């Protein structure tokens, strides 16, 4: 992509980042469009798309996930199961959109029986599991785990991991083919990841007490 077009792309991504951070009713769609753009610049098959899903409680909390009947098909024929829970929160600077939970699972098959790795960030994980963690379905060379415990049951604690970081991992380490050159997608991911760090919720070591999302009480419709 020639440099002027790259500038235009980065400008478009900045606009989408600004739009989702604004926290108004268009924020969710802007976040979806941004995530979709990043995936289609990089590792996603052209048939894959993202869908915003709402529930019966109102429109201030939406789930961004793979659209259709299967996880996102990637260019290597494998799949990415993606779930990002978004909500709007009242802050001192007005309403802002936040990511409250996310899960990214790279998998060999559509059903996820043969998953490869997963990054989860859950506000209320089961006891003794760090809220933000990575799991790898593999085996260790050393016999260092309790007898009968496979590596895939180990939850390695992490900080929040962005969609951009997962895309980079798949593109560079797992060599999933990207739809654009490195010179395009790398600066694109760098650009949008900076904006993500502004809205992320940082995990703590133990599960967060209720309510699950701090903004829910303020913005949710009353039943």
């Amino acid at each position, binding site marked *: 992509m020639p440099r002027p077009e790259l500038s235009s792309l980065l400008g478009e991504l900045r606009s989408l980042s600004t739009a989702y951070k604004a926290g108004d009713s268009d924020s*969710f*769609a802007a976040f979806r469009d941004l995530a979709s753009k990043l995936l289609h610049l990089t590792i996603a098959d052209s048939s894959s*798309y993202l*869908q*915003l*899903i*709402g*529930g*019966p*409680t109102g*429109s201030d*909390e*939406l*789930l961004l*996930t*793979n*659209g*259709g*009947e*299967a*996880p996102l098909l990637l260019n290597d024929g494998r799949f990415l*199961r993606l*779930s990002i*829970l978004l909500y709007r929160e009242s802050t001192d600077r007005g309403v802002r959109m936040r990511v*409250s*939970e*996310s*899960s990214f*699972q790279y998998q060999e098959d559509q*059903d*996820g029986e043969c*998953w490869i790795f*997963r990054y*989860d960030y*859950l506000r209320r*994980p*089961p*006891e*003794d*599991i760090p809220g933000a963690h990575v*799991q790898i379905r593999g085996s260790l060379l050393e016999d260092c785990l309790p007898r009968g415990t496979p590596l*895939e*049951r180990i*939850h390695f604690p992490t900080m929040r991991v962005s969609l951009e970081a997962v895309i980079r991992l798949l593109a560079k380490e797992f060599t999933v083919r990207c739809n654009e050159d490195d010179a395009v997608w790398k600066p694109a991911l760098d650009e949008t990841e900076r904006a993500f760090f502004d809205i992320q919720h940082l995990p703590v070591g133990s599960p967060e007490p*209720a*309510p*699950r*999302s701090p903004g829910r009480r303020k913005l949710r419709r009353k*039943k």
Partner: protein
Amino acid sequence: MATPAATVREEVLTLTREQIIAIIEREAQKRLGLSARDLFRRYARGELDDPGRVSDLVILSHLLPEDDELFAAA
């Protein structure tokens, strides 16, 4: 997670409580051989061998009211 097919890519696909529970029921049964209610009961008690297998379903469930009866046994 298989969501109900949409003929167009809607801006927001709004699911009813019944549709959300139907997705969770189907996927919990397929992946773990559990009902949705058992899934959340066991999840809350830390009784699932690999709770990450259903992270997407747990996140989906947050679109339901916190006092939904699906979570009553949890």
